[in-house]
């Protein structure tokens, strides 16, 4: 079952189309990685999927219903989004940030319930942030801060989680930390995870499904083993490479050789 789908989706910024007439179905309970070169439109696509950007044409469907016609609060109970490098006001504590994730479940009558309290505690625990709960965000390391934001998204308790480059600006240990946390969420809680990733090898290793975007269109999609080919890396990223199996888990791994010279080899 695919809970999130697009048909004819065209997204634009200031009149310039970034995503063009896109048909995409995102498989449920899987990890999907959106990859592509800078400026290909993958972040724009993610914002469009999360109804943060209004489509110029076409539609995003959530569980078969047009996402723009659902109440935004109802959407927020099913789909969470973590934008790229979000900034919190100085002095905000981790607990206060995570508590914001409960907003979709509250209203004028029901301000803060026992369940909200439990979900916040659960999210803090799962993301390993319980011991930092009362610290201000701006006093934490980059990796801890990112975990706090993910904890907020967890407290939102959505089956679908969209993340825009969750590992950017983190050192390797923290990158692995975040990706393992997302993998754990997917495997133990059946959450659907859709994320923009910069690192092809990380995408191939952690994703069940890879979507390669080139200039606003889908170049290819499917299992990393099918998608991650030398031809794809050459055509989309303009880099000559060898694809070898990862020596530990066997997923495809890209070893870049050199920058391709103006598409010569392919034409020959």
């Amino acid at each position, binding site marked *: 079952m695919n809970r999130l789908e697009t048909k004819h989706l065209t997204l634009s910024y200031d009149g310039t189309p970034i995503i063009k007439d896109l048909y995409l179905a995102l498989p449920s309970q899987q990890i999907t990685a959106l990859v592509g070169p800078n400026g290909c439109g993958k972040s724009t696509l993610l914002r469009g999927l999360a109804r943060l950007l209004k489509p110029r044409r076409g539609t995003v469907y959530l569980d078969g219903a047009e996402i723009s016609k659902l109440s*935004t609060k109802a959407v927020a*109970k099913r789909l969470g989004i973590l934008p790229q490098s*979000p900034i919190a*006001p*100085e002095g*905000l504590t981790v607990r206060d940030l995570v508590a*914001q994730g409960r*907003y979709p479940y509250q209203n004028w009558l029901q301000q803060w319930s026992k369940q909200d309290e439990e979900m916040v505690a659960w999210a803090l625990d799962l993301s390993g942030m319980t011991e930092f709960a009362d610290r201000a965000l701006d006093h934490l390391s980059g990796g801890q801060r990112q975990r706090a934001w993910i904890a907020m998204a967890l407290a939102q308790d959505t089956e679908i989680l969209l993340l825009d480059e969750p590992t950017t600006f983190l050192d390797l240990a923290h990158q692995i930390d975040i990706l393992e946390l997302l993998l754990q969420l997917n495997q133990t809680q059946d959450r659907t995870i859709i994320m923009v990733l910069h690192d092809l090898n990380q995408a191939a290793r952690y994703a069940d499904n890879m979507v390669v975007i080139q200039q606003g269109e889908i170049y290819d999609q499917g299992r990393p083993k099918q998608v991650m080919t030398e031809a794809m890396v050459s055509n989309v990223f303009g880099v000559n490479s060898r694809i070898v199996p990862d020596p530990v888990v066997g997923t495809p791994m890209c070893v870049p050789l050199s920058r391709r010279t103006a598409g010569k080899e392919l034409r020959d």
Partner: protein
Amino acid sequence: MGLAVGVLILLLCVVGNLALGVSDIPLAEVYRAFVAYDGSTEHLIIRTIRLPRSLIATFVGAALAVAGAIMQGLTRNPVASPGILGVTAGASLAVVITTFLLNAESLGFYVWFAFIGAAITAIGVYFLGSLGPGGLTPINLTIAGAALTEFLSSITSGILIVSQQTLDQVRFWLAGSLAGRDLDLFWQVLPYFILGLLLALGLGRQLTMLSLGEDVAKGLGQRTIFVKITAAVSVVLLAGASVAIAGPIIFIGLIIPHITRALIGVDYRWLLPYAAIFGAIFLLLADLAARLLFQPQEIPVGLVMPLIGAPFFIHLVRSQVKR
């Protein structure tokens, strides 16, 4: 708990504001002026001069502080406030134009022009600020506000040079003064203060979310457009009503939110009510200082503000405004 203490201190300041002044009136007499009014000079001073003044200081202080806190949250700009972003200047110009053209006497009438002036300026600053390189950055917004303030103030000056009569009517008001308003005027703007404050306090939760960024707030299911419009209406009501009754009093909307944030934190559910209380206390004390410092001469409280505000503003710009 903290709020209760705040309210208590506020009440003490109101009492102090009633009791202290150029003519010494003992506390017992202040009390009797309310419960056993006998028409004596002292009672008259308390009821017709000092009471309106204290009430106005309380509400104007609260309104400007809350308006500043909202503006800083909405624009994510540490130096945003009704004064810096030109809203005060816009409302002032509107009041001066109204006085000049219509010779309006009734405050209930020209408060509407203050709202219109405040609203137009707010939209103008927003628009001008987004034209600069990089869009609506704190620095662009601040420059747009400064430019518009200068522009509007020069038109105000122009009108006052042309029309001696208008100048005479608004001279004291224009310096930002709480003196010489009778209680009637206060009752006329009170509903707008209350409406503006209620709107603002009702938005606390939403503003905290919005301060995490528009995408985060939208992603959590907030209708950000609705929140922003409501917040802007509240700012226009609070700043416009303040200007209409007390003239342009600047810097309070800048300073108080920062002090409140340092003491209370960044959650707007608490930040806003505390800012209201601190703003009221601050203006009551500043007004008292304006009354007592150069006895028997009084200076308008609007002239005291920059003495405290200007150094604070420079400190903020140096430490907090990033491109």
